């Protein structure tokens, strides 16, 4: 069976050109991994390790300098954006920033439908209502503006926005960072339920090792743009190989035992 998403030697260099000479400021070393349908992969690492950059490369905000991304065995080119936008959707870290303050949720959710599907207005409206109920909101919320929603509701809207095009893969950049614990677990459960129902591949970036352990099947650990370690969640949590991962896990264990 071909994996849903295959990433081969994906690299990225950002060059800055000061007046004298060339300097490379940041690079993502070749990254390769595979993702199967219905599988969840977590990307871990400290700040500035290239996690968000990897997410941006996957969804197509940034153009990679080398390597390729295969979706169902077919190469995704940077020119065929439409296909990628429909198949891979992103949930942003700050849901508040990623929603346009001047538009109602209805028109926000309608935008991807107008641009990527040929549904007519009534069926678009139906689809919007359906997606809103899917993420546990009411159809009436389509008349709301960003500022009328709580943080958790905004996160749900961000999920709805990702889901509305029936994607195959969702990339989420720290979707739970700004949420308080109860809302966070609600959102986690919502995402896991949707994944079970729709068979989505899910790539998810987080600092929170508790959630990572809870929902992910496999883990990729990044440090300074290099892949330090990757493998099954259980294996990494119980037998971390590299020193960097060991430190991360130890810090997490220390936190749990202190809580107990």
């Amino acid at each position, binding site marked *: 069976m071909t994996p849903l998403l295959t990433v081969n030697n994906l690299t990225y260099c950002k060059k800055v050109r000061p007046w004298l000479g060339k300097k490379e400021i940041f690079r993502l070393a070749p990254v390769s991994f595979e993702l199967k349908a219905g599988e969840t992969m977590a990307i871990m690492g400290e700040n500035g390790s290239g996690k968000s950059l990897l997410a941006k490369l996957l969804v197509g905000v940034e153009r990679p300098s080398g390597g390729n991304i295969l979706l169902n065995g077919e190469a995704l080119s940077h020119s065929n954006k439409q296909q990628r936008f429909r198949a891979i959707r992103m949930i942003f870290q700050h849901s508040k920033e990623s*929603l346009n303050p*001047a538009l109602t949720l209805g028109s926000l959710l309608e935008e991807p439908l107008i641009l990527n599907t040929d549904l007519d207005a009534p069926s678009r409206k139906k689809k919007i209502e359906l997606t809103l109920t899917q993420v546990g909101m009411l159809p009436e919320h389509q008349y709301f503006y960003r500022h009328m929603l709580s943080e958790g509701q905004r996160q749900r809207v961000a999920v709805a926005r990702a889901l509305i095009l029936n994607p195959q893969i969702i990339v989420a950049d720290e979707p739970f960072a700004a949420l308080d614990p109860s809302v966070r677990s609600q959102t986690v459960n919502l995402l896991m339920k949707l994944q079970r129902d729709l068979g989505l591949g899910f790539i998810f970036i987080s600092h929170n090792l508790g959630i990572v352990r809870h929902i992910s099947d496999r883990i990729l650990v990044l440090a300074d743009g290099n892949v330090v370690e990757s493998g099954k969640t259980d294996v990494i949590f119980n037998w971390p190989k590299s020193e960097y991962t060991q430190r991360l896990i130890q810090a997490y264990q220390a936190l749990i035992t202190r809580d107990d």
Partner: protein
Amino acid sequence: MPKSSFYEEEVYPSPMRQTWNEFQRNHIALGGLWCLVFFLLTSLVGPMLLPYGPLQQNTDALLLAPAWAANGDIEHLFGTDALGRDILTRVAHGCRITFGVSFILVILSMLVGCSIGAYAGMSRGIRSSVINHLLDAIMAIPTLLIAIIIVAILGTGLMNAMWAISLALIPQFIHQTRDIVRREFHKEYVTAARLDGAGNNRILFHSILPNMIEMLVVQGTMALSVAILDVSALGFLSLGAQSPSPELGAMLSDSLETAYVAPWSIALPGAAIFLMVLSINLVGDGLRTALKNRLTQ
């Protein structure tokens, strides 16, 4: 699942509605708005209600005092000037010319300035910085001075003054729009719209423009007060509207010779200009504060 509508009786205040609510709390600005509405009505229907023409001379009543003075006459509420023309009529017509001309100028330069500004905001590199720095250099010169220079080239007259002032107003609109577009383009909601598959133009019109309109209105009111002052200043200097025309600035310079004998003939058009500019500035300031309060909420 039965369709529930818990929220039916609730209102959904749009961002614009919110700004309006915030604006209403500021009573002085609201007073300014009423004053502005009064001037708008005066310039629209005022001239139709008055029995005299703006150039009609009544040789029996030269330099008549206003009606409230001891030797005034109720026939001429604001009195008459040295040629026996009714000042109330002339002020009403003057409001129409000065206010109307300024309004058209501002709309025109806003359209031009915003399109160039949006283009400059979306383009990068040398093109963008040329547009930007060239216009910044022009903005260092006061608009009235630019207008005078342009009038000196084109010749005097209201039409030329209009061209001059609208050309002089354009740079600030370009600058403002460019700044807003630049700032908004870096926000995450634009990236999100881009991932929905929206191109640059769609992002500009569907995502950024709704966020920009209120700021443009604020900028527009500021430009309107500048335009009114410039139109009447050029009229006063006899560079814009010429003498018999009831433009407020031209009326001021007309009655300058009789200022000691008939102070009302200079005070009343002056008061009209003053109130107009004051009310516009109050409204503009109130809008700006309301917008700031809404955005920091």
